[in-house]
């Protein structure tokens, strides 16, 4: 949304003490974030109103050689200064010697000063007022992009100074059919004189302006601010100024459509303004006609109010001959002029937030085959077809609201009119609609049909029913045709709400100390008035504030309008209670520290979503994954069931980048359908740790064991019976903690390695929940001896297929049975020369808690150890 500060100033007199910069800051801190404040002044610098004094066709071309009166304008042209012939060459005056200035005599008759411009527009003619972009001007259309700067150049041998501009070149519309013509009877703003050659174009059309660019999303909850009047009311509020709701049109009644026209009373059938309507505007409809219009609203929720008028207008599609302030007004808001009636309704929409739609009256009743309009507002039937104004035929959904003429659809409500009732040059009567619709339905319509017009943007914020009639009345005024008939159906009558609260409620939530009178004034500034009933405070919600319902809504207004930044900052007082740590987060932090700081592994974060192709490649059951149905890419198809496959992709990526010998790990949540649901019916998740390394099984195992040791966990491995399909079963193991399988460890299956172009890669993945179980933690009391220890080496020749761990367990068992013995057993080497046998060497150390062990005693223990291994057909080497 683009908001003109000049327009705002028409409704609110900004105190001189508040600079434009301050104002923008205040709007930012108390109303809405200003994405950008665009200064239009430099864009229209060096654009002047001029009179075409002479206009001669150049033979054999479509061009005209014009002499233009430029009055006493002093255009700046610094770039051309000094270079001979650079400056605009006045005709009939001394040649320029130093550029950059208009050398026309300003003391004498400036009208005699003329400059030559070659113009190709078909509508250029002697006597007209046009807009001249002087040498040095940047063509506004190119401003901020290529910044095309005009100069003096020769066209067909004639010198041309700058250019006479068309609507498109001025960036005020799309029209490229000719140059812009200015109405000579137009007043120079703020004076009683007419515009004249030499007047600054920006001054005449109020283009010395700042445009505030506001993100629509930021004001989703404030439909009223989608009209200039509503926005201005807020600006008054944050400046602490009472918004003059009663500043009515009489003062400015004669201003053109771009003027600060408030919703005003209709001159026909005057009625006093009522509390429910906007101040100065009537909310009852102008009575006209014989009540032949019938309005049938299927459901008040779909369309709380439908108001309409029939107006005789023969010039509905007429285009203005002259550039009007209205066209400029629309351009500043980012809209384009279309024709008289569309412009008037669009300007009203920008001012009030209320979109209007005009049908061709004769077509409307012809389509419905009725004598007078028979309007139906209803939901569309599935696949009901409607050709829209843009020529497209849509198939409706049952969420779309249709406007029908005797049940024949003629418009997609709030979104776009139908082609069958389009206004054209032959239109003599219009049927003008001012209504409000369910924002929820229109939101669906907008999304489904992809219609993002200014009108539907406003409707989807929920425009209040209270404004349809006042805006319609104003439209009737501005259109100026003969009013034939009106009608108003208001089944969803807006209830007037009153919010009661206390000064204490406000101060205790904000942490402030506002006086009751301050609060009352703050809110009265924006039309929220205290009704002074018995309650401490009792605010009447104005009809345009559809967002105010509860106490907190009022408290927000008080805090916001006075500035949240003015609230004193304090700290809550808390009892001395230790904050609880999240056990899982604590564990993850510990693991992170061990793996990254001690074990040389790199932590990665990879996406929660994976491509189903990857799942299939690693042998996961894709049906067990929750599937994302609206993903933007096939790489985000499914929620992952495990972390390892994602790590494998990153192993590939990094080794391709030239890295060798590295380890990656990730801790994150995984889920799959077979995990079932929590008590509150959402899918269970598991917290996993996965690690992948470009080494063999033993390296991954060593990492796992080191990690487990640092965490005081007694883990073991056992035969891989079942587990993720991406592990090579014979080179993999189940990880056991306290008898439970907590995860898997192993080399990645050959097929997966080749499928993902991996080097030899091993991995483990464990479910961290098991690690949290306090019973699984094993912190052994250290057993120490003050007596010296002795060491022995032991090498046993065993069958090749004997598991190392069984041999070790046998030795450990024997040693555990010794009295008072403290021992360590460390693997030294595993050596295999023959196919059938291997040599396993251990280093053993012994100490007694009671005495120094003698050699004979140690030998006796060794003897027992060796005997215990006999069952494995072991022999001492």
């Amino acid at each position, binding site marked *: 949304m683009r908001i003109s500060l000049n327009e705002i100033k028409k409704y609110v007199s900004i105190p001189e003490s508040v600079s434009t910069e301050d104002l923008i800051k205040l709007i930012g801190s108390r109303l809405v*974030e200003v994405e950008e404040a665009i200064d239009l002044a430099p864009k229209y610098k060096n654009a002047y109103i001029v009179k075409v004094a002479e206009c001669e066709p150049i033979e054999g071309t479509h061009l005209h050689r014009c002499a233009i009166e430029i009055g006493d304008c002093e255009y700046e042209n610094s770039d051309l200064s000094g270079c001979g012939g650079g400056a605009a060459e006045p005709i009939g005056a001394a040649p320029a010697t130093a550029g950059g200035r208009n050398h026309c005599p300003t003391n004498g008759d400036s009208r005699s000063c003329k400059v030559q411009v070659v113009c190709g527009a078909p509508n250029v003619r002697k006597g007209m007022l046009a807009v001249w972009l002087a040498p040095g001007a940047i063509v506004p259309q190119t401003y901020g992009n290529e910044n095309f700067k005009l100069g003096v150049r020769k066209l067909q041998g004639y010198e041309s100074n700058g250019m006479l501009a068309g609507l498109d070149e001025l960036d005020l519309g799309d029209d490229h059919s000719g140059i812009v013509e200015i109405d000579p009877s137009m007043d120079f703003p703020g004076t009683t004189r007419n515009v004249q050659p030499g007047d600054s174009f920006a001054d005449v059309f109020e283009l010395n302006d700042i445009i505030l660019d506001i993100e629509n999303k930021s004001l989703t909850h404030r439909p009223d601010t989608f009209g200039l009047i509503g926005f201005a009311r807020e600006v008054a509020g944050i400046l602490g100024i009472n918004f003059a709701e009663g500043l009515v049109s009489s003062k400015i009644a004669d201003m053109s459509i771009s003027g600060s026209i408030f919703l005003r009373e209709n001159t026909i059938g005057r009625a006093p303004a009522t509390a429910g309507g906007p101040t100065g505007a009537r909310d009852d409809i102008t009575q006209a006609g014989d009540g032949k219009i019938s309005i049938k609203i299927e459901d008040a929720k779909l369309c709380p109010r439908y108001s309409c008028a029939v107006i005789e207008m023969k010039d509905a599609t007429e285009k203005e001959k002259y550039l009007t302030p209205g066209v400029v007004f629309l351009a500043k808001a980012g809209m384009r002029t279309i024709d008289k009636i569309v412009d008037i309704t669009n300007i009203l929409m920008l001012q009030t937030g209320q979109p209007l739609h005009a049908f061709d009256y004769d077509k409307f009743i012809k389509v419905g085959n009725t004598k007078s309009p028979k309007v139906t507002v209803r939901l569309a039937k599935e696949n009901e077809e409607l050709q829209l104004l843009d020529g497209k035929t849509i198939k409706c959904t049952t969420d779309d609201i249709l406007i029908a003429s005797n049940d024949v659809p003629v418009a997609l409500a709030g979104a776009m009119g139908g082609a069958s009732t389009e206004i054209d040059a032959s239109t003599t009567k219009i049927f003008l609609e001012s209504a409000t619709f369910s924002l929820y339905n229109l939101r669906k319509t907008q999304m489904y049909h992809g219609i993002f017009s200014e009108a539907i943007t406003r409707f989807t914020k929920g425009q209040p029913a209270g404004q349809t009639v006042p805006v319609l009345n104003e439209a009737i005024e501005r259109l100026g045709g003969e009013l034939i008939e009106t009608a108003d159906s208001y089944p969803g009558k807006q209830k007037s709400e009153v919010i009661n609260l206390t000064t204490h409620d406000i101060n205790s939530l904000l*942490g402030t100390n506002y006086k009751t009178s301050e609060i009352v004034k703050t809110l009265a500034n924006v039309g929220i008035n205290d009704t002074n009933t018995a309650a401490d405070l009792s605010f009447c919600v104005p009809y345009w504030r559809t967002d105010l319902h509860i106490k907190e809504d009022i408290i927000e207004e008080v805090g916001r309008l006075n500035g949240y930044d003015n609230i004193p900052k304090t700290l809550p007082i808390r009892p001395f209670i230790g904050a609880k740590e*999240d056990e899982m987060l604590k564990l993850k932090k510990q693991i992170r520290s061990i793996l990254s700081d001690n074990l040389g592994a790199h932590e990665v*974060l990879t996406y929660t979503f994976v491509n189903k192709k990857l799942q299939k490649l690693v042998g996961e059951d894709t049906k067990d994954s*929750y599937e994302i149905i609206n993903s933007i890419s096939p790489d985000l198809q499914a929620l992952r069931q495990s972390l390892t496959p994602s*790590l494998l992709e990153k192993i590939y990526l990094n080794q391709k980048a030239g890295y060798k010998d590295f380890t990656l790990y990730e801790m*994150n949540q995984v889920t799959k359908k077979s995990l079932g649901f929590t008590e509150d019916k*959402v899918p269970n998740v598991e917290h996993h740790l996965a690690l992948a390394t470009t080494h063999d099984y033993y390296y991954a195992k060593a990492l796992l064991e080191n990690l487990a040791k640092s965490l005081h966990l007694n883990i073991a491995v056992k035969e891989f019976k079942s587990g993720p399909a991406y592990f090579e079963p014979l080179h993999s193991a189940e990880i056991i903690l306290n008898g439970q399988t907590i995860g898997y460890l192993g080399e990645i299956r050959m097929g997966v390695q080749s499928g993902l172009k991996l080097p030899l890669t091993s991995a483990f993945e464990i479910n961290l929940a098991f690690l949290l179980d306090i019973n699984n933690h094993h912190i052994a009391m250290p057993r120490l001896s003050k007596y010296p220890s002795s060491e022995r080496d032991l090498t046993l020749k065993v069958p090749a297929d004997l598991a190392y761990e069984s041999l070790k367990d046998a030795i450990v068992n024997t040693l555990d049975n010794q009295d008072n013995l403290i021992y360590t057993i460390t693997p030294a080497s595993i050596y295999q020369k023959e196919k059938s046998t291997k040599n396993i060497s251990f280093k053993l150390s012994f100490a007694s808690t009671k005495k120094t062990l003698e050699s004979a005693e140690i030998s006796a223990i060794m003897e027992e150890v060796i005997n215990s291994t006999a069952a494995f057909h072991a022999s001492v080497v």
Partner: protein
Amino acid sequence: MSELEKLKSELNSLGKEYAKIKTLPPEERKDFGIKLNQKKEDLLQKIQQAEAAEQSKNIEPIDITAPSAPNEQIPEFKNGSKHPLMTELDRVCDIYSRMGFNVMEARTIDDEFNMFEALNFPEGHPARDGYDTFRTAEGFIPPAHTSTMQHRALKKYKKDLENGGQIAVVIPGRVYRNEDVDATHEHTFYQCEGIFVSKDATMGQMLGVLKNFFETYYGQELNIRTQPGYFPFTEPSLEFMIEKPKSLGGKGDGWLEMLGCGMIHPNVLKMAGIDPAKYKGFAWGGGIDRLVMLRYGLTDVRYFESGKLEFLKEF
């Protein structure tokens, strides 16, 4: 005679001095003894130093600037790395923890109820579209913000309130938005949510807590600024900004948007079974990725989930 020998003979000669004590008048003996002991101490210390110097006599100097001794392999240590997002998240949680906030982790998949309903988003409300949520076929939602955890956290800690205490909890987690990825947009990122509920929580307290957090985080006093915002689950709602800290090159002019915050909407409290007439609260949520990007001057958000070692090894 070497220096050491000299010292040793001097020590030996002290024996004679000690013998003299007996010859002195009793009143002088104490002073004499103290002085003699002191002398002995000094000598012993000097002898120790001299002995140490003797032992080191044969040590060859090494090139302390070289990467290794001659003929030896240059030592190689493999350094691991922690993901910067996780390091930052730990720091953030640590500070809140010290302020007295419990920490609980957000979940990676949730439902429509927690994402919207429990947060006072009316059904079909356009504000629901603003979050560009991913959806599963079953209608589950990988959460688009950590606020999805508010309802759970309120219910979980409600009994603390009933026991006369307060709810103070922060919730870090991973969140998702269905949008195209570029240098400044990721569909996957991290947020940290905060909730405080008590009998007398105020907006002034919220601003104080957040100001205090960022001052601790950046290690300096900071000016703060706010801007009205709109979230259905807070009323009033604010955007919270801090002055650009010195450590990020701030010179007291620029502002950084840090998070969205507000007073918890009474409907959100009600949904969790907390009486909004008795209790008030505030909540906030902000991105972690941005904190990391600011800290390290990163300009491309895509590095975070890239898994690239060239990036990770820097942390």
